[in-house]
């Protein structure tokens, strides 16, 4: 009963589907406009659910961040960061980008928290792991900062 389509038909279907899915995705993860025919309220619910899920996974791959910031502050800062910023390259990258966003955009309650986030980010964002040994580590962090 399924009507047979040629390979060319399927490739045209792929193009149409790609446009439709990109439109929905942009609305959900990149602050794009609500595509025609969609319920804006439902999209907002889905958008929040996606960010919540993303925050859950980031908290799993980088448990130090909710520990440093506190669970509630972590969530609210992550929502601010993630809105309109699609994930670029996996959750570890996302965690690093989030920490960098915190450092550049501010929004942390005190210098101690800021220092901890900065250290966390420096320890992970370089091309190589931090040098071993307390003195070499300290010198590296001073130079990087």
């Amino acid at each position, binding site marked *: 009963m399924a009507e047979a389509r040629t390979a060319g038909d399927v490739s045209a279907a792929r193009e149409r589907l790609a446009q*439709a899915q990109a439109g929905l995705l942009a609305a959900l993860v990149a602050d794009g406009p609500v595509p025609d025919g969609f319920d804006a309220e439902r999209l907002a619910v889905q958008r929040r*659910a996606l960010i919540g899920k993303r925050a859950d996974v980031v908290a799993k791959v980088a448990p130090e961040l909710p520990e440093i910031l506190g669970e509630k502050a972590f969530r609210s800062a992550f929502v601010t960061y993630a809105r309109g910023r699609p994930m670029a390259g996996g959750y570890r990258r996302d965690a690093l980008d989030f920490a960098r966003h915190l450092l550049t955009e501010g929004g942390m309650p005190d210098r101690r928290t800021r220092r901890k986030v900065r250290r966390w980010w420096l320890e992970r964002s370089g091309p190589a792991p931090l040098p071993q040994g307390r003195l070499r580590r300290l010198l590296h962090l001073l130079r990087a900062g």
Partner: protein
Amino acid sequence: MEGTDTTTATATATDTRVRLGTGIGWRPEIADGIEALPGIDWVEVVAENVCPGHLPDALLRLRERGTTVVPHGVSLGLGGAERPDEERLSGLAERAEALRAPLVTEHIAFVRGGGAPTGTPHMEAGHLLPVPRTRDALDVLCENVRIAQDALPVPLALENIAALVNWPDEELSEGRFLAELVERTGVQLLIDVANLHTNHVNRGEDPATALDELPLDALAYVHVAGGFERDGVWHDSHGHPVTQPVLDVLAQLCARTAPPGVLLERDENFPPVAELAGELETIRAVLARGSAPAAVPHG
């Protein structure tokens, strides 16, 4: 390519589906508890969370004592506009082999999009998003499923997902969409009864209608999971107890067919393992009550 061979094979082949029994989603957080639970016939493991060369010891111990392990993929995005990524497919195939799995499962969903063909940046959803139930999407999905089947060493079963959003201008019901997918590809189905309930609350789609339209001969196994309702929207959280409406959908399914397997999913907010054991007991009771002979008419 759309030969009659796959179509007739689905309709007439003798039932080669694996009898899985009762299982639970294996997660590292509850690995010890699962090992201690009696009556666990099989487990499902999120494919992307295991490395074929370094399988967790607790999982290996389960497998050695005869527990079947099924890899469940979440990142292929077979419902996406692009062809499935070869590397992801071979990764899933490797896991199936490493786990000596009788089948692998994935979702009817798209998880990424954008990029060169659309003139927008590449975007990852980070979760499963619904495919529009249109002819276009079905044609693309069927081709993607065939590509996946060719790359996998064991049969593939696909799961219906829970949706929060509705696509406008859909052309097929969920049941019809799945029925045609099975007919054209011979793919098996993993029916998530919590997702049918979700689509009932969120999209007004009656689970009984979907179950009536589904080709239940292709059913590989059933997922059961908990969630919660807030402001008229069902959230399929996998972090809350299984509720009665979800068990009711399971009972409706069991009245139509005896599922070869059933699996409890819990991904968050893990309770003591005794609570999960209790949920499994409840699920077994629904199965025992509902396993009417398949020949009994319904509806």
